[in-house]
């Protein structure tokens, strides 16, 4: 058979999670890391603000507070054992990054510098706490670079620009994956004992998004087609501050450094919604607050955006208003230069894309689709679990944004995702290598590439009546408008109907490029298929959940309902439809209570 | 944290090889040529160039303080212009310029020729060329 490779462990995706998994797995097993992008182009590189760990380098902090904040942030849907595990491991994990050379910003004492972020608090006073370790506003970039470099140092095997199309199951166990090499259009079969998915999220299903073009939910969709369920897909995070219309993210770090949100009337509105932490409430709260302002006519120019004000004089004024001080007690001020040093890229984005200079002008912002809380269900070792009783699928692992551990529950706290990548990427890598050491290879199916080939053939042979770009545009709009920040029964029904039509129209799409070499049209069209599948699951799970919780806010069911809905959704693709079941949430120390910031 | 400690590398560890020596050599010879040229021009002015030479001739002398370069000017007596002192200055400038120029040619060649063999050939030819030009140049300076 042509193009068959054999590895103990195959990692799909080379973002933070994939690289961490690859690094650890390669120490104990023959490992390949496969990615459709060059590793350094993964979306982890876009992460700006920071990675959390309760070091207390600047003020008192402890992992228990981090745990509680994350549980509360998740609106009590996160599994508390996993959250506690992650928060306890956090300091060690971040130190490990430092030891790998990651250039964190420093405190005057030479330790890792930390900044406040939404939802991170001192549990005694309720005030924001500095927990996010950062390297300017390109923390993710530095994590991605550092991990890639460490992988090179440790001679990890990479297959760059290979798009994974299919997951092979034999005897109900992992047998490998099929990928296409973008440069040649050739199929490759990777025969493996264990496969780790780390393919990132699917934010591209929404119109206004901070996510990369590559965020098409490939990993989730292709596993879904192979009978693996997806967990909590209705929970999607909308980040409060995206650049108006473009969706490019303005990190919460800007508010951490003292920026505030201002409505069309020039008022600071967050104190109304979150009296204690104000602009640093968790993201779902802030995004909803912005939308409420807009819907009540207080958007800027009666339009659908608000201001983010980070001009040095405003920062000083509002800090004085909030009684915010430096650790030594002096009043908190930030000069233009300091702001430029702390968030240089954000300032650059505003200047390039808006022609606005944040040092002297306010930034027009609007909530933007940002983070996939749901995904491939796993336990805290990265093992994929496929039913209500958490049965493990042998040899299949997932980590990072494509996975749902669930540490983020219904709403992820800022900086917890990068932490998630590092902690669970590592454990998935370790577990997979351990598994590969004792397991045998399953035989490959007779024609492993048949399904992938068939999928491509279908895209090549469509009637050509429909245009893939139109379908993409419409899908994004439907999802953003009807399954976005605010949702209701009618809208979601409509969305599902429209998605059905779009899926039907997708059958008539025809790829015009007949070539093999870099047939990006073909690959992108295949990705559209994934997005449609994922969108359908998101919409149906959201319609089913008749309550509001975290990132899922229903206008028709505005309250959280713990008695009926304190449970995880599991969704399977069955007979062309979606089957939904539920599984319990793990609650250890923190019984659910009302969430106020 | 050793805030004050400055990091530095000993001579053998800083990558100071022939390549980089020649790199700094090019800059230093550039400065040296400036110095010598200025020196020659000032010398010319002291020796009365202001009345007897036009600007172009002064410059020509400046770039190579060699008596034939003032032959076609109104300078009455070539004596002071062809002293051993000026011949030494001229020789210095010649050697420096030749080394600088020939190495410049090597630099250009290295941009385009990357095989070790090719590069070595270029170096061999260059050294031969440089020696030849230096000798001929010295011969011209000291016999004119």
């Amino acid at each position, binding site marked *: 058979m042509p193009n068959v490779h054999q590895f103990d462990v195959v990692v799909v995706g080379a973002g933070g999670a994939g690289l961490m998994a690859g690094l650890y797995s390669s120490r104990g097993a023959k490992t390949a890391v496969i990615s459709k992008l060059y590793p350094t182009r993964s979306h982890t590189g876009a992460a700006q603000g920071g990675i959390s760990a309760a070091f207390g380098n600047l003020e008192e902090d402890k992992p228990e507070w981090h745990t509680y904040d994350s549980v509360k942030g998740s609106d009590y849907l996160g599994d508390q054992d996993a959250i506690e595990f992650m928060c306890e491991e956090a300091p060690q994990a971040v130190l490990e990054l430092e030891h790998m050379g990651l250039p964190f910003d420093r405190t005057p004492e030479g330790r890792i510098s930390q900044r406040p972020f939404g939802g991170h608090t001192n549990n005694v006073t309720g005030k924001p706490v500095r927990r996010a370790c950062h390297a300017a506003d390109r923390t993710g970039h530095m994590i991605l670079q550092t991990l890639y470099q460490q992988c090179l140092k440790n001679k990890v095997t990479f297959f760059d620009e290979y798009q994974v199309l299919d997951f092979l199951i034999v005897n109900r166990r992992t047998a490998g994956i099929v990928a296409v090499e973008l440069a040649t259009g050739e199929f490759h079969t990777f025969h493996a004992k264990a496969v780790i998915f780390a393919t990132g999220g699917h934010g591209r299903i929404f119109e206004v998004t901070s996510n990369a073009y590559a965020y098409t939910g490939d990993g989730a969709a292709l596993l879904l087609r192979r009978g693996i369920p997806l967990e909590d897909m209705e929970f999607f995070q909308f980040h409060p501050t995206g650049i108006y219309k473009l969706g490019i993210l303005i990190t919460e770090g800007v508010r951490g450094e003292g920026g505030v949100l201002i409505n069309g009337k020039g008022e600071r509105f967050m104190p109304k919604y979150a009296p204690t932490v104000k602009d640093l409430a968790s993201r779902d709260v802030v995004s909803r607050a912005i939308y409420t302002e807009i819907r009540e006519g207080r958007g800027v120019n009666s339009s659908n955006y608000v201001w983010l004000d980070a001009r040095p004089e405003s920062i000083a004024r509002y800090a004085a208003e909030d009684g915010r001080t430096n650790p030594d007690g002096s009043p908190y001020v930030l000069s233009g230069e300091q702001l430029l040093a702390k968030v240089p890229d954000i300032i650059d984005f505003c200047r390039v894309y808006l022609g606005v200079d944040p040092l002297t002008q306010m930034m027009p912002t609007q909530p933007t689709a940002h983070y996939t809380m749901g995904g491939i269900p796993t336990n805290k070792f990265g093992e994929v679990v496929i039913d209500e009783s958490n049965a493990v699928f042998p040899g299949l692992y997932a980590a990072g944004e494509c996975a749902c551990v669930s540490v983020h529950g219904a709403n992820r706290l800022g900086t917890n995702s990068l932490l998630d990548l590092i902690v669970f990427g590592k454990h998935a890598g370790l577990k997979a290598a351990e598994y590969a050491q004792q397991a045998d290879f399953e035989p490959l199916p007779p024609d492993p590439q048949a399904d992938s080939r068939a999928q491509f053939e279908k895209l090549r042979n469509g009637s050509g009546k429909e245009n893939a770009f139109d379908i993409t545009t419409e899908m994004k709009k439907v999802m953003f408008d009807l399954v976005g920040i605010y949702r209701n029964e009618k809208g979601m029904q409509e969305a599902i109907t429209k998605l059905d039509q779009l899926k039907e129209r997708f059958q008539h799409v025809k790829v015009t490029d007949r070539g093999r070499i870099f047939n990006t*049209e073909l690959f992108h069209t295949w990705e559209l298929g994934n997005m449609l599948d994922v969108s359908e699951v998101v919409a149906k799970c959201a319609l089913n959940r008749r309550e509001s919780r975290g990132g899922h806010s229903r206008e028709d069911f505005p309250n959280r309902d713990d008695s009926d809905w304190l449970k995880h959704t599991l969704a399977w693709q069955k007979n062309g439809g979606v089957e939904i079941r539920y599984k319990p949430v793990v609650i250890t120390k923190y019984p659910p209570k009302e969430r106020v910031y | 944290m050793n805030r004050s400690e400055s990091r530095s590398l000993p001579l053998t560890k800083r990558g100071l090889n022939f390549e980089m020596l020649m790199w700094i050599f090019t800059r230093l010879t550039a400065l040296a040529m400036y110095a010598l040229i200025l020196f020659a021009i000032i010398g010319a002015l002291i020796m009365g160039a202001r009345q007897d030479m036009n600007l172009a001739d002064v410059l020509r002398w400046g770039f190579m303080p060699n008596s034939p370069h003032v032959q076609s000017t109104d300078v009455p007596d070539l004596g002071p212009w062809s002293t051993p002192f000026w011949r030494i200055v001229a020789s210095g400038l010649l050697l420096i310029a030749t080394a600088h120029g020939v190495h410049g040619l090597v630099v250009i060649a290295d941009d385009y020729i990357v095989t070790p063999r090719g590069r070595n050939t270029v170096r061999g030819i260059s050294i031969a060329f440089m020696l030849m030009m230096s000798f001929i140049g010295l011969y011209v300076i000291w016999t004119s």
Partner: protein
Amino acid sequence: MQVTLKIFRYNPEVDKKIHYETYNFEAQETDRILDLLEHVKGYFDGTLSFRRSCAHGVCGSDAMRINGRNMLACKVLVRDVGGQITIEPLLGLKIQKDLIVDMEPFFDNYKKVLPWFINDSPLPADERERLQSPQQRARFDDTTKCILCAACTTSCPTFWANDDYLGPAAIVTAHRFIYDSRDEAAAERLHILSETSGVARCHTAYNCTLACPREIEITRAIGELKMSMITGKLD
């Protein structure tokens, strides 16, 4: 406004020669060039191929020549370059299809400078971070910004002449480690950079610095390395 997009085209499976295609359509002043390319791909010719991912200048996928100069298509707006736009692939790398070039030689050069943190000394006694003052951290901040987009290396006249030259991007990466007070392999890296294919091939043409979408002062970084080789000072 009306834009005219003239795009370099080459499909190895059908074309014998390169050619240019021109597309006219309505666009916004605030559209990214990347948006225009997506539009052409979506509605004029699906076979047009180029790389892209983040769409806001942080992943380094879509460096290309726009009106004759290297830029990221996602970081340039129509209003920055006007309505007559010529788009061509990067120079000095094999053209695989349309705007897609073979990045392997570029990454090979990157891998030559030991692009990873090296410190084999024991950790501090408390096993916590290796301390570094804010000033020491600031020393190499500029070169940590590199996203490996290759805009610099493929704008360098020496790299056009030969891909043996490490190129500015690889040198920038070496710089990031050499001036990191925690790293211990400065000598090895300087040794590599001092070879004939290293910093000596830079003739301060500044094309790299002016092309860098991350505004890294590349030529300065290269200059600092050259002087460190002469003086041995790493501050």
